[in-house]
């Protein structure tokens, strides 16, 4: 719910500013106006998140509520009705699960889609490295991909560590797009990619938990020239 407030909030600052310029000096104005806001289910949102049945791993997504979630745990893992069904992802292994749900731009501008690793919670499952598990969101079926074609791209790799910046001569987001080019993760209106996960467990201890992944789409940082895209 907070997400929607936040989105709406961004635009309103502009409106307030415009009003201020036009009306001369005043200390305070309070004007009540009727406002119509329509919230939508994730599959119908401006940034739509949709676990389409055609996606190979949409069974791991739970879209029963308004906000989609991913369940890779005991209660909800697919196949739970069959004997000996899996109860979790492999320990001491690297698991890549692509094509869980579709991320689609239903707005009217190009948007650059990423996940800020600093905003993933808990931080221990990210670069911080203190948990036995490392989780990184992935994008595949990208419509404008020019880097590492054929591979899924990490949605967090637009951020780099200082060492990575030195080593690769790349600047991190938003100066450059980290390891990638802006068009790699840009979606034109109507375009979509598949959201997935990379999960690496070091085998030391079982890990169970809930992770929050902030999926962000920004028009400001999107590539404007998408070349051959439709």
């Amino acid at each position, binding site marked *: 719910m907070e*997400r929607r407030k*936040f*989105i*709406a*909030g*961004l*635009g*309103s600052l*502009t*409106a*307030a500013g415009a009003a201020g310029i036009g009306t001369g000096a005043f200390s305070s104005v309070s004007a009540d*106006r009727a*406002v119509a*806001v329509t919230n939508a289910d994730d599959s119908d*949102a*401006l*940034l739509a*998140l949709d676990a389409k049945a055609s996606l*190979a*791993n949409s069974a791991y997504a739970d879209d029963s509520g308004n*906000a989609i979630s*991913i*369940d*890779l*745990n*005991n209660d*909800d*893992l*697919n*196949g739970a009705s069959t004997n*000996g069904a*899996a*109860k*979790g*992802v*492999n*320990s*001491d292994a690297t*698991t890549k*699960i692509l094509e869980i749900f579709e991320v689609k731009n*239903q*707005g009217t*501008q190009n*948007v650059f889609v990423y996940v800020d690793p600093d905003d993933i919670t808990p931080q221990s499952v990210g670069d911080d490295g203190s948990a*036995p*598990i490392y*989780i990184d969101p992935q994008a595949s079926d990208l419509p404008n991909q020019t880097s590492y074609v054929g591979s899924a791209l990490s949605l967090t790799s637009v951020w780099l560590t200082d060492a990575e910046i030195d080593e690769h001569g790349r600047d991190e987001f938003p100066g450059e797009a980290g390891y990638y080019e802006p068009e790699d993760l840009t979606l034109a209106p109507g375009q979509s990619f598949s959201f997935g996960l990379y999960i690496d467990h070091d*085998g030391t*201890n*079982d*890990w*169970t938990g*809930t*992770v*929050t*992944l902030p*999926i962000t*789409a*920004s*028009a400001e940082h999107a590539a404007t020239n998408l070349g051959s895209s439709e």
Partner: protein
Amino acid sequence: MKRRTLLTVLSGVTASVGLSVGTGAFTSVSADRRLEVQTAGDNNALLKLKQLGDGKRSIESGSPEEVEFSFPGLQERLDNPHLGLGVDSVYEFDRDTKQSAESVPNEGLLRIENYGNQSVEVYSKHETDSELEIELYDVADPDETALRDDSPKLGVGDSIDVGFRIRTFGADIGTFDETLTIMAD
């Protein structure tokens, strides 16, 4: 928190403008989405790894539970501490030690089972500093082709029983702790 409250109040203006104009333009969206993850031992994981036979060539231990293999088997080494694989040889282990005494021996030392949502090709990778070479093969395959040379495809719910082939050419006498990586993709 206060910031968000303020933004919420202001936000309505934009939303209404947007609606009246009829555009779906947005500047930025950030959506927090929840992911629940649990790791599981080898017997309960998406790629299920189940040891076959009780002759102690394979054991399951630890938390999370992992399968480990020993050649010769642990029981064989208890019975004869000096036992080992000969050098400059190719060994194939297609079943656990006790199985050969059975009238219908169970083949395979490890069952690899696909509990995911997609078909996967299964093979093994062995990286080592030693001279040893370790690979898996399908015990039901008359040619005993290594998985890494002809990777079988496992549909959802399918399984394959595999044996171990170990080449000891150029290897020294001793005990080696090796890691075999099982790939499914």
